[in-house]
Structure formats: C-alpha cells, structure tokens
C-alpha cells in the first residue's frame, strides 16, 4: 500500500495489505457517510427551517440493524486480520535458514549458523528465514517495514522467533521499535536481500573483518567499534554520553570504583581489555553500573588490539 513495487517484498505483504485495504475501505465509507449525514441533518433540521422538533423515542428495529451490520463487518475485519498473520504462525519450513538477531543497547548483531556475525541483516531471496530474537539487556523490537515483519526482542526469552520469505532484492530499513532508552532512535540498520548465488558467495567468505588497506592508523579499530556499536555510548571528542568519552583515555590515570572502594589506575591495555570483557567489575567514577555489558565471545583478541590502536590515536 505504501509502494506498489513492494507489494510482494515478502510472503506477508499481500495478506497484511489486504487486511489494511478491507478495514480502511469500510472505515472510509462509514466515516464519510456518517459525517455527511450528520452535517446534512444539522443543515436540514436547523431551528429556522424546522422550528418544532419531532419527538422520536427510538426504534428497536434500527438498533438491531445497526448492531448486526457493524458486528458482521468487524467479524470480517477480524477474519482478514487473522488471515494476514497466519502465513508466519507455527514452525518455519524445514529448509529455512536460521539467523539469530541479538539486540543490545543500541545495536543489532546478526549471527549466522556458520559463525558469521554482521551488523546488517543479509538474506537470500526467495528462501525462508527464521530469525531468532534475543536481547541482552532490555526489550528491543525488530521491524522491517517493507516485509511487514515486527517482533519484540525480550531479554530472558529464548524461544521467540519470526520467519518469513523475502521476495524482493534490495536494501530495506530495519528499525528498533520498542523504546529502549537514549539512542533508541539511532538503533537502526538495513536488511539486504541478494539473489541466492550471490548470497552464498557472501556467506562462504568467513574472513572476519575487512581491514581497509592503508588508511589512517586505527581506522580498522573504528570500523570494529562502529560495527559492534560502542559509539552509541562513547564519544571520541570528549563529550559525555552514557559512557565516558574515549578521548584522552589511553594510558592516562583514571579513578574507578571496585565494589565500594575508589581506586586510581592507569588506563593501559589490560585495563581496557578488562573494561570490555568485565565492564561491571570496575566502574568509572561518575558513571553507572550495569549499562555496559560484557563483549566476551563477541570480540576477538585481534579486534581488541585494533580498538586499542584506535584509542591511542585519540
């Protein structure tokens, strides 16, 4: 309904749009009809034209009519609404590809069966995909408007999934739709649908990060941090976000709180590594515990090296 081209962007679109069409058409007819009737009455029976009102108590017949007709209509709406949803109820087909979407404040990560991890959702065209919904901290939502797919991602629930079949090649917006705090509105990425052979080529290539040749020192580290979402909470220009800024962090003294005691340390390689793997053990003074979650199993040692390289440049 939004864009004719997208009409078959996924196996859900037709049903959902049909339900829209049915409900909105009926609604428009009632809205326009009732509004016109109302205005017509106000005009026709105005005091000047109709000085004496005719007293009418009501009519059982009419009441029955205008109870049953809307009842029938809403049951129709219910039917189409449910029909539009059923294509994706129940278990996905056996040949479905599985992707696990992991949300945290405020980034998505998509994990494929062969261990590949990305920040963009890559999908093969015309193949069913099952997306497992995981969240590490608070409730997030995964929403791909073009595909009419939406699901909350609830921490502590590991049985939630959504499946569908993308039918259209291209790049589509993917939003977080469940309010999740400061950078909720920046928690978006894309879903990219590719023809199956192209997808397979991409899928086989498991070299982790593509390090751009040349470039400034630390460029690769910045790439990693962008991909994994550190910059949602940390700035590189000294301004305070949810977490402390990275500017002037490396090898400088720092006051942290361990348990209840304050301690002064130097932000060396070891400290930064600890901060990433066990962020809640040492809390930077003036910041809050529990916001940053561990990146264990999500970052390799080489990637940490790259990050530290980058931090040195700030």
């Amino acid at each position, binding site marked *: 309904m939004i864009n004719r081209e997208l009409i078959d962007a996924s196996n859900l679109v037709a049903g959902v749009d049909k339900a829209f069409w049915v409900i909105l058409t009926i609604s428009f007819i009632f809205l326009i009809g009732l509004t016109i009737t109302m205005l017509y009455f106000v005009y026709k029976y105005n005091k000047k034209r109709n000085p004496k009102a*005719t007293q009418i108590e009501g009519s059982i017949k009419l009441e029955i009519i205008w109870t049953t007709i809307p009842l029938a209509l809403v049951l129709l709406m219910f039917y189409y609404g449910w029909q539009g949803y059923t294509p994706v109820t129940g278990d996905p087909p056996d040949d479905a590809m599985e992707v696990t979407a992991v949300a945290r404040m405020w980034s998505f990560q998509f994990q494929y069966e062969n261990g590949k991890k990305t920040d963009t959702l890559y999908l093969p065209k015309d193949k069913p995909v099952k997306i497992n919904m995981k969240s590490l901290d608070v409730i997030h939502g995964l929403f791909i408007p073009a595909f009419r797919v939406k699901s909350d991602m609830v921490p502590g629930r590991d049985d939630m999934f959504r499946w569908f079949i993308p039918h259209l090649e291209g790049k589509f917006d993917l939003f977080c739709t469940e309010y999740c705090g400061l950078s909720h509105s920046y928690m978006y990425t894309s879903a990219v649908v590719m023809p199956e052979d192209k997808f397979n080529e991409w899928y086989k290539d498991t070299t982790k990060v593509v390090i751009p040749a040349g470039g400034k020192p630390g460029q690769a580290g910045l790439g990693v941090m962008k991909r994994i979402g550190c910059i949602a909470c940390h700035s590189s220009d000294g301004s305070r976000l949810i977490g402390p800024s990275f500017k002037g962090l490396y090898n400088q003294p720092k006051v942290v709180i361990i348990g209840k005691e304050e301690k002064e340390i130097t932000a060396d390689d070891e400290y930064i590594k600890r901060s990433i793997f066990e962020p809640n053990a040492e809390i930077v003074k003036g910041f809050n515990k529990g916001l940053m979650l561990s990146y264990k199993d999500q970052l390799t040692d080489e990637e940490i090296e790259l990050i530290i390289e980058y931090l040195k440049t700030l």
Partner: protein
Amino acid sequence: MAEPTINLEQSFYEVKNYKSPILNWILSTDHKRIGLLYLYSIMTFFVVGALLGLAMKLELIAPGKTIMEAQTYNAAFTFHGIIMIFLIIIPGLPAVFGNFLLPIMIGAKDVAFPKLNLLSWWIYVLGAIVALLSQVMGDGPPDTGWTFYAPYSFKTTSTVLPALIGAFILGFSSILTGLNFIVTIHRMRAPGMTWLKMPLFPWTLYATAWIQLLATPVVGITLLMVIAEKMFQIGFFDPALGGDPILFQHLFWIYSHPAVYIMILPAMGVISEVIPTFCQKTIFGYKAIIASTLLIAFVGYFVWGHHMYTAGMSDTALWLFSLLTFLVAIPSAIKIFNWIATLYKGSINLEIPLYWALGFLFLFMIGGLTGLVLGSVATDVYVHDTSFVVAHFHFVMFGGTGTGFFAALHYWFPKMYGKSYDNTWAKVGFWGFIIGFMMLYMPMFTLGMQGMPRRYFDYLEQFHGGNILSSFGAIILIASLAIVIINLVTSAKRGKKAPKNPWDGITLEWQVDSPPTLENFETIPVVEKGPYDYKK
C-alpha cells in the same frame, strides 16, 4: 458543616466558612468547589503538558537535533504522557464535571461522602507533587515512557521512583472518586428518579466509576511491585531476577486498557447531554445508549492484550484478544448511530457546545475507526509502536475526550459561572482547533504506515515531509486553544450575566440558579418525567 448564619439563597461562591479566601476553597467539602479545584489544577498541568507536546513537535520539525538533546526528548514524552494520562485525562471529566454536576443532575445536595471527596482532591495534589518531584530530583527526569516497561525501568539511571509513587497515589484519588459516585448514585437520587429516569451523563459516570474501582488497584499493585523490585530487589519482572517482563505488560494493560474507557465514557455522556438539548428533542435509543455504556465498561476489561501483539504472547491469545477488541468496538458504534439519529427531525440550535459535540463525533470516529486497524492482528503487527498508534490515541483522547471536555465547558459554563462567553471568539477557536488538529495528527497516520517508529527523537530523511506539516499543525492548534481558553477566562471575570437556562435544557441542573446555591435545591425535586422528555 453548614452553620446557621449561612444564607442558603446565596450562590455557593459567596458562602464563607473561613476568613481566608484560600482556605475557603481548599478546605471546602462543597462538591461544586471541589469540582472547580480540580478544574483549575488540571488546567495548570494541562498548560505544562501542552507545552511539552509543542516542544516535541518543534524537535521533530527536521531530522537531526533541532532544539533539544535525545535525553531531553525522551524525558519530554515521558512527562507529557504521565501528565496527560494520570493528571489530566483520567481525573478530567469525572472529577471536574462529575463533581460539579452529578449531585445536581440527580437532585441531591452533595455527594455521599463530601469529606472523602475533598480528601480525593488532596490525594490528587499530593500525587501530582510527588510525580513532579521526579523532574527535579536525582539523576534527571524519568525517561521510560508513560508505560514504565520492565526491564528498561530497572536499567535506566533516571529518577523513575517518584514518578511511580506519584502514579500509585493518583490511583487512590481516582478510586475514591469512583467509590463516592457509585454510592451517591445508588443512594441519593431524588424521589421518583428511577434508574431509567436518570440522565446519561450520570449513567456514564456510574459505569466509569466501576472501572476506576476495579481496574485501578491492579495497576496500583503493579507499580508497587516495580517500586519494591527497584528498592529491595524482590524479583518480579526483571529477567535477571527470574521475572517475566511480559507479565508486567499484562498487569499494566489490565488496568490501562480499561483506563481508556475511563477517559472516553464521561465524554460520551457529555455528548449525550448536549445533543438532545440543542435539538430540543428526546435522545434516540436512551436504553440502547445505557446498555452500550455498560457493555463498554464490562467487555473493556478483557481486551488488554491488543497492546501486546508483538510482545511474544501465544498465538491463541492473539486471536482471542483481537476478537474481543473488535467486539468492544460495537457499543461505540451503537452510540454514534443513536446520536446521529437524534439529530434527525430535531429543531437544531447550532450553538458553540453543539459545534464541539459535532467535532467530537467527527474526530472520535476517525480515532475509533483507526482503532479497528490496530485491533486486527496483521495490521497492528505492522503499525504497532509507529506514529500510527500515536495518531490513533491522540484522536480518541484529545479529539474524543479533549473535545468532549470543551463541549462540556462551553455547555455548562453559564451554570458554573453565571456568565456567558463571546461567541465569535469561541467559533474562531473551534475552527482553528479542527484545522490544527487535522494538520497535526493526520500526517502521523501516513508516517506510521511508512514505518516511522514512535518515541523517535530523530528520523530518516524519508519521513521529513509529514513531520513538517504536523509541526505546523501543532502551532495552529495551540494558538486556537489559547483563544478558546482566554475567551473563557475573561468571560468568567467580565462576561455578561447569563440566564438561568440559556439553552432550554430540561435536565435538573437547568432548574437551579446559576451559579447554584450551596445546597443546590431549596426543596429536593420530585422527578416524574424522563430526562429528555421534551414533549410539552
């Protein structure tokens, strides 16, 4: 306690129990004064809430940061939501017009428990103050949204606690008002006023009171659990402590869905009073309207899950809630049809209150019909948590209850103040309101259908067009409401004296003085006719 020196022929404004004018208000147990106390407090909050709304719209006028930071925006919609829901629209009509008019309309001297009534207002003020404290205490104003969803409300470092406690306290105020009204209606109707001779506004207050009584405690205890969880780490809803965040949503909406009917039913009652008066005609289908009122109140308890279609409920629950949601729409439809049928062959006197009533019909129809889009599973999963929902609830709450509130204000203004207002300015305000309103909220429907999520501080370039239109609409809307309110305030002070019954109404409130005396009636009337029996 009325003292012997009090002259019962004076208007209630002139009755003085204390020397200090302030004490005369805030310690008065007169239902009319309490109604006005609510009116003034609500109007104050309302200015704050409206300004926050305007600020948000200005932020959204262009992508990127325009006037505030993301954190400020998040705090703004949270505070806007809390003010509008808990401080304005839930107490709104029952506490203001219910208090002022319910006893008069059923021929009583006061409500059943006048002291409790005053206590409700005090509790309201206390709750409001506690909620406001959240804005100035601790690490910044709360940023959870008015829904306080777990576990975000446990994770955030902003000051959520006072807001929760405030909402909890406000719940008690609402419960006590409801309790008072039910007993009043049961015990204090004038002789001869049987249930089926009672006007429709008291009827809707009666149904509303039951919802207040039975639904509010559920959210009360839920908020209390969140408070306990935040303070003592008792596990309830945080998955880290074994809880189920979705249970929080269940409990929250078990109250908050019925609450939307607390908001709309009294407005529907107002419309049922205004239309017959200005048609000089008995209302069409009196009993059908009562039945639909009770049905909304009853079925409304069982549809809360439609706010949670994407939350991870079972499919069985999805279709059950969807079906029930569609059923609860039917009684609203019945009401609309009956109102429009009342216009038929009336002798219509197109005055300001009727303008607002017709505005209500139009805007509420849009809001309600888009509610149907949300009730259907397939379409709701698509537009859930997008600006489509935001548009829906502004249409029903603001276009419905808000407009009903203004209809009531213009209808009963002469009774409350004994003054009449300026018709020209009132009309300008009304038309500005309709134009601004449509411009502000219609684009949100399309934005939502394009996929723009709600509670977004910033948005992608493709959503820009609709947002510009919407922001300008907000400016028009606020300007015209300012006209409306200034007109009323100045008229209350300097307006011409109004006749006792300017609209030729026949319900009991038009039989008493304007403004009414302390005990409303010299002798309690004996009711023989139906409430809208215009047969001369």
